[in-house]
């Protein structure tokens, strides 16, 4: 994979660009997040095709989530998800204690209000990956204190 710094700079610029071109005040915040997430979705779909070329079929949902937490995250951010929780009814919480894209921003509360922008793309990545593995889902993220963050995945039963 290409150098980490390259992707980080590109990602930051992407967010700046989306916000500048959609600059109609604070009310457009939702639209920008949606655009970023949609981009991540398409990228996630492509990435998952590449990463699962050689892997055997997944046994069940939990197996898919474990793959996302271990192999997918390792390929993207060179580390695994630190904690995976589930209620065994389709809701999974992925916790990353030191999220790569946030670790340079701050180590606590500073810049907290800007954090969601930097997580939208990754939410899309996860959603795209899951969708191509056959699981329709909704992915949201929350940050309590940087650089730790949680991604919540809700699998939709069709």
């Amino acid at each position: 994979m290409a150098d980490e710094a390259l992707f980080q700079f590109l990602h930051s610029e992407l967010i700046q660009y989306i916000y500048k071109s959609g600059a109609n005040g604070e009310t457009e915040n939702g639209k920008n997040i949606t655009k970023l997430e949609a981009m991540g979705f398409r990228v996630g779909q492509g990435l998952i095709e590449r990463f699962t070329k050689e892997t055997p079929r997944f046994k069940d949902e939990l197996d898919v989530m474990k793959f996302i937490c271990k192999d997918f995250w390792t390929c993207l951010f060179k580390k695994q998800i630190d904690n995976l929780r589930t209620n065994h009814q389709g809701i999974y919480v992925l916790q990353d204690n030191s999220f790569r894209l946030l670790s340079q921003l701050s180590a606590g509360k500073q810049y907290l209000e800007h954090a969601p922008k930097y997580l939208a793309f990754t939410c899309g990545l996860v959603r795209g990956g899951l969708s191509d593995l056959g699981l329709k889902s909704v992915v949201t993220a929350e940050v309590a204190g940087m650089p730790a963050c949680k991604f919540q995945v809700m699998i939709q039963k069709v």
Partner: protein
Amino acid sequence: MTVHNLYIFDRNGACLHYSEWNRKKQAGISKQEEFKLMYGMLFSIRSFVSKMSPLDMREGFQCFQTSRYKLHFYETPTGLKFIMNTDLSVPNARETLHQIYSTLYVDYIVKNPLCSLGDPLQSDLFSARLDTFIKNLPYFNPRAA
């Protein structure tokens, strides 16, 4: 053995960051004037050093020392200037200043999309890491001689 203070200037002369650890005597003028004085003095010294050099110059101005303190200077290829005042026992802090640039500035300011380059450095993370880094230097001593 101690570090007194640290200034970071950008290529236009604006002071991006200043922190002090062991400064017993203030300059007697406002901070803004002090920054302007520091930058102006360095600009003149560098130009003087390059003009008067009897040989081909390589690095240019690196440090000066008085009977009480030593001032170290490091300029990056992008025009960022790091100035550190230490006491006399520190031989050459150029490597340290280079490390401050490459590990702290690049990682926490350049890679932080919320910090625009050219503005005073506001990232708390940067300040905290810089503080830890300086305090871990082998020649830092919180109680100056």
